[in-house]
Structures are given as C-alpha cells and as structure tokens.
C-alpha cells in the first residue's frame, strides 16, 4: 500500500514539474493503481478549447521548418514559400481579421508562423478597384438625382487609389516593424512579429473596408457614417488586439502613443476613402460648368 501511494504521488509531482517548465503544455498522465486519483489530466492553454491541437501542430510545423534550409532570396522558391496557403486557410484568416476576439491573437492563432503575401496583395488590389468602381457608381447615381452633374469615367482614380492603398499597407507595417525592433533593443521583452507578419496583419485588416465602401453607395448620410464607424472599429480592434501583447511590457507612454498612432492612421485611410467618393461628384460638377458655360 505504501509503495502504491509513493508511486502515485511521485507521478503527480513529475507532472507538476513538467508543467512548471512549459506552462503551455498539455499533459495527461494516468496511474494504473487503484487509488482514487486514477486519471490526472492537465490541459493549460490560452483559454482556447483546442490548446492541445495547437501545441501539436506548432510542434510539427516547427520541426518541418527546422528540417528544410531557407532558400536564398534570389531564387523563385523563396517567394513561393510566401504563397504556401490553401483556399481554406485564406478564408480562415479573413474571418479571423473580420471578427477579432480578445483571446485569439491573430498572428499566433491564425498565421501560426506562416505569413502569406497572397492575402495582403490581392485584398489591396481589390480595395483599390472597388474604390474606383464605387466612385463611378456614386457619380452615376448622383446624376440620376441631379441632372446637372456631368458623368465621366474618371479613370485616374484607379491609379491614385491603388498607389495610396499599397503605400499604406506596406510602408506603415515597415515603420511599425522598425519601431518595434528598436524598442526591443531598448527593453528586453517578448519577441516581436516579423515584417511579413505585420504586413499580413495590416493586409487582412483592410478586408473590412471592401464591403464598407460598397455599402457607402446607399445615399443616406447617417447610415454611411454608421457603416464607416463600425468597419473602422472592427478593423482597429483587430490591429490593437494583435499589437497589445507585444507592447504590453513597454512604458505606458510608448504603448499609448503607438496604439493611438495606429488607430489614427487607419481612421485617416477610411476618411480618405470617403473623401475620394465625395470628390468624384464635386469635381465633375465644377468641371462640367467650366467646360459648358464658358462662352465659345
């Protein structure tokens, strides 16, 4: 009896030691003794229900990544590694960016150390074209209501929208990444995200702007403000929740300044989209009057 008790207690202690070492591990241990502590199962995670699967999968991917050597950046397969996603994975990442949840960090939970460039690139392209098309449609609808507005395709909007959106989605993450790296040098803390992960976060967070811009076709002003505020809130919530674990240990001033800059820039982009839609009407109106009311 004493031997059985010793064995059971020892096993339990070993489990707690292991748990103390790796706090994110899931341990199961079962003693086949007749004691009442028959089955000891400890599952600790970030509060998610599938913490065990996370651990197994990240172990597997870490192993796979350690096995193959990284190809040089001048080879095609280097860039192919950034497009190594399936349709279901892209859709899952979009869903994760659309509906941010406080427990789920987008980078750790959805990206899982495999950032892709497909999502950011094509979401930016879609947003640029949707902005141009919606600007055109706004003009058509405005002309229906007010026949004095002259319709014209306004093709230069595509170029401007494209350049603005691509610059935002690539330069702002670059600056953010550089800043976080610099702060990591100043204060030791949790490892920051890589550049591609930051680009991914920003790229996927822009997805909500696409339906927002389409819904702005409805010519009811308070509804437009409502949609804009809702989309902006969701998008910046995703960004803030992703950045919070990284700058949590920094000084209060730096953290607040960084988060408010991120939110402000995002809000500026949303305002820019709204202004580009409004300006299509006003510019065509004044151009029409200039061309057609001048004495010939």
């Amino acid at each position, binding site marked *: 009896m004493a031997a059985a008790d010793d064995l059971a207690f020892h096993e339990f202690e070993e489990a707690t030691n292991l748990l103390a070492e790796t706090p994110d591990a899931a341990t199961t241990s079962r003693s086949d003794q007749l004691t009442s502590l028959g089955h000891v199962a400890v599952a600790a995670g970030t509060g998610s229900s599938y913490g065990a699967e996370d651990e197994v999968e990240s172990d597997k991917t870490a192993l796979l990544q350690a096995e193959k050597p990284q190809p040089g950046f001048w080879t095609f397969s280097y860039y192919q590694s950034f*497009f*190594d996603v*399936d349709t*279901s994975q892209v859709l899952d990442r979009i869903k994760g960016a659309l509906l941010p949840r406080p427990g789920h960090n987008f980078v750790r939970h959805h990206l899982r150390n495999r950032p892709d460039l497909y999502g950011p690139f094509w979401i930016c392209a879609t947003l640029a*074209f949707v902005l141009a098309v919606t600007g055109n449609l706004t003009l058509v609808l405005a002309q229906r209501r007010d026949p004095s507005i002259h*319709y014209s395709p306004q*093709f230069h909007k595509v170029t401007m929208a494209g350049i603005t959106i691509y610059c935002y989605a690539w330069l702002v993450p670059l600056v953010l990444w550089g800043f976080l790296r610099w702060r990591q040098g100043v204060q030791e803390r949790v490892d920051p995200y890589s550049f591609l992960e930051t680009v991914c976060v920003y790229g996927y967070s822009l997805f909500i702007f696409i339906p927002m811009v389409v819904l702005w076709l409805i010519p009811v002003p308070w509804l437009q403000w409502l949609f804009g505020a809702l989309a902006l809130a969701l998008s910046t919530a995703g960004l803030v929740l992703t950045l919070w674990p990284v700058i949590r240990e920094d000084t209060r001033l730096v953290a607040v300044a960084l988060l408010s800059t991120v939110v402000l820039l995002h809000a500026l982009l949303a305002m820019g989209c709204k202004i580009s839609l409004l300006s299509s009407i006003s510019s065509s109106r004044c151009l029409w009057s200039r061309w057609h009311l001048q004495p010939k």
Partner: protein
Amino acid sequence: MRSRSREFDSSTLNESVQNTIMRDLKAVGKKFMHVLYPRKSNTLLRDWDLWGPLILCVTLALMLQRGSVDSEKDGGPQFAEVFVIVWFGAVTITLNSKLLGGNISFFQSLCVLGYCILPLTVAMLICRLVLLAEPGPINFMVRLFVVIVMFAWSIVASTAFLADSQPPNRKALAVYPVFLFYFVISWMILTFTPQ
C-alpha cells in the same frame, strides 16, 4: 542523314511570304475558335503564341481611348493605360499562379489570358454600335446585358484552360485574380462614353 527539323526548316525558308502569314493567321484563328467554344483541350496551351493577345489588346485599347480634346483628368483611360492594365494584369496573374504552385509555364498562361479577352473585345464592338443609337436607359440595359454575358464567357473560357494547372485546394485562389482582371476590363468597357 539529315534530321527532320532541318528538312522542315529549309522547306519553310523557301515558301512564299503569303504562306507564312496564312499559317500564322490560321493558328490564331483556330485559337479564337477554341476560345469562342471553350472545351477542355490542350491546344491553347501546347502551341502558345502572343499574336492573338497583341491584336486583341491593341484593338481594345484603340476603341477604349478617350479623345484628346476634352479634359485630361476626367475621362476614360488612355491607350497606354489600357495596354498597361492588360499586360501587367496578365503578368501579375501568371506570377500569382506560378507562386501558388501551378504547373503552367509563363507564356502559356499569358497566351490563355490574352486570348480570353476576345469575348470582351466583341462586347466593346457591340457597345460602340449600340452607342450610335440615342442614349437612354434601354441603351444602358442592352450594353449591361452584353457586357455581363461576355464577361461570364471570358471567365468560363479561361478557367476551362487554367483550372487544371492548380492543385484542387488552391483553385479558388488562382481563379479569383482572373475574375478581378476581367471585371476591371468589363468595367472599362461599360463605362465608356463617346465624347
């Protein structure tokens, strides 16, 4: 013993210019037929050429360009803008497809994407004819219908050729940029207004 290719070469060197041109034109025409009646076949992929896409792109750009007398900022696209959109769009989609792991070569993909602009060029011709009539909502409805039908035709034709080159769990990722590409071209055709 001379190789077959050398026999072939000397025979095409001696033929008349008309024969050479007619052979190329027939190849282009055969591919146009394959696009208009899309079936799963390898002809477009096997003997790719870029003459067809060039002819189609130049025709489309010529018809879409705005006149030079009206204001520069507020019109439709210029010739160069259409050209750049078509060719850079096709190159981007091809790169995307290759990066996703597709087993289609660069020029084969460019060939397919270029040839599948044929329905949209036909739509442009029809729209220009329809615009000669008096403007109004019926005019717009007819043009909208024609452009939508030709847009769907382009998508069906290009996916018939391109879909097999991707693994099945990434097909949607490779097809979506094609959809966006033809959507943008259809939009340019639909919003074309003569001055």
